[in-house]
């Protein structure tokens, strides 16, 4: 099982690059989700839920998603879940204010924390295979 992180969070890149492949998206959270959707159509499946965390999509600029590469066909569940998440995120609209550097770092930290638990589980699952 190949695993891959899609993220626009620089902290994720620094933390996991070298341990788990990271595809860094230099863009917004909605753009991250679109990349995830495209990968799902190409045979990847979701390992984490795209709507991670309770911080609203128009509050935090960061989004990180963990994917697994599949050998066979597309996983419809993943596509539906991602499309649904895109709907929700789009509904909330753009980020509502200009966060300062310190606040951005805090959002990066929370996003990274949300992914970390899942990444550890995924690595553990990998070892089993």
């Amino acid at each position, binding site marked *: 099982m190949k695993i891959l992180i899609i993220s626009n969070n620089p902290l994720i890149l620094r933390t996991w690059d070298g341990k788990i492949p990271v595809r860094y998206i230099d863009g917004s959270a909605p753009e991250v989700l679109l990349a995830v959707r495209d990968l799902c159509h190409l045979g990847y499946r979701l390992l984490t839920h795209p709507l991670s965390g309770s911080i609203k999509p128009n509050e935090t600029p960061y989004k990180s998603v963990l994917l697994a590469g599949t050998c066979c066909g597309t996983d419809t569940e993943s596509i539906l879940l991602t499309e649904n998440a895109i709907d929700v995120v789009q509904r909330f609209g753009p980020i509502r204010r200009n966060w300062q550097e310190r606040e951005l770092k805090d959002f990066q930290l929370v996003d990274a924390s*949300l992914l970390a638990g899942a990444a550890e589980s995924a690595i553990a699952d990998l070892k089993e295979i």
Partner: protein
Amino acid sequence: MKLELGYLRVTDLRFGSPSAFCNGVLTIDAEAVRAMILENDKVADVQLDIAKPGESIRITPVKDVIQPRIKIEGPGGMFPGTISKVDTVGSGKTYVLEGMSVVTAGKIVGFQEGIIDMSGPGADYTPFSRLLNLVLVITPAEGLPQHEYEQAVRSAGLKTAVWIGELARNAVPDRSMIYETPGIREGMALYPDLPRVGYVMMLQSQGLLHDTYVYGVDAKRILPTVLYPTELMDGAIISGNCVSACDKNTTYHHLNNSVIEDLYAKHGKELNFVGVIITNENVYLADKQRSSDFTAKLCEYLGLDGAIISQEGFGNPDTDLIMNCRKIEAKGIKTVIITDEYAGQDGRSQSLADSDPAADACVTGGNANMVITLPPMDRVIGTLDYVTRIAGGNQNSLQPDGSIVAELQVITGATNETGFNRLSAR
């Protein structure tokens, strides 16, 4: 398991020395509390303040709300695994200081969360405006990593609640309630004709500022399991969740879980309240599947006829909620789910991030996107630079006259998903 709760009504809260609880009046030696909290060198400073119902005070940013209690008889102490040792709690006798709470406030991360207004329209939307609140505004040590600060704030709040509880050790309760859950075999013999009902309680468990602890164990790591309802009354579950203000369960909500109270009220009369099944809301999809499978399996194993399912938080927990509902219903067990909604400011968007026709019985805590205007208050307890940075507000939230226009999401406990409030929507 049988627990007697002795309720001590707190009618006034003030600073003074010596600390005491006498005739309903709680006197707190602020310096003593401060010294206790500052024993933790992760905390650089703590300011104590008091906010009473009806006062023109705004508390923000709120992290947690905790009710002081003290274990009088029975194994263990309050908040096992966190403050007290890990002994199994939920039996014997516990005193409750009713009518007051400890509120922790402090930035932890740069964006702000959680407002409690003690008067005005905002007060209607939080249960904490009706309590005498001892507020702890906590400043971290320089350069402290965020997760250590969160831990320090959490610890300070719980320790203070326990410290205050100790003052009531020799008090005489105004009233008492006995909460008793028989074992499975005994329960079946006692109530053969009553429907067997369980409470499936979903706990936020995703990471920093999104965690819950069960006997000190991170809920991210648990498999769904069964608790006696009274275990929650002694603080077996505590909140490490600060997001989002309106639908996160504070430790106060865990201690005073209203589903548990309302099921107990009908226990032995209209239903047999079998017990509580706790489960989590992990981000990892395989965990969601495992947990919902386990939860449904436990419901079936316990021979439930019906279950109430409550959740916590926004977004992906809706998926867990629907998974739990669908799988439990598929076992022939009837469910009612409790949730809140993010239907947009105009109320026209899809309220939940997930849905299923099996979820045909739903109670809602209201639309969290509803816009509310909070008038200026005479005093703000908390950090000063909060106003435009409240989650649920925006650059223009602060009006020229000092009032705040923001969404209901900013108010602590406003759309609680354990059905704590009367707010609803149609």
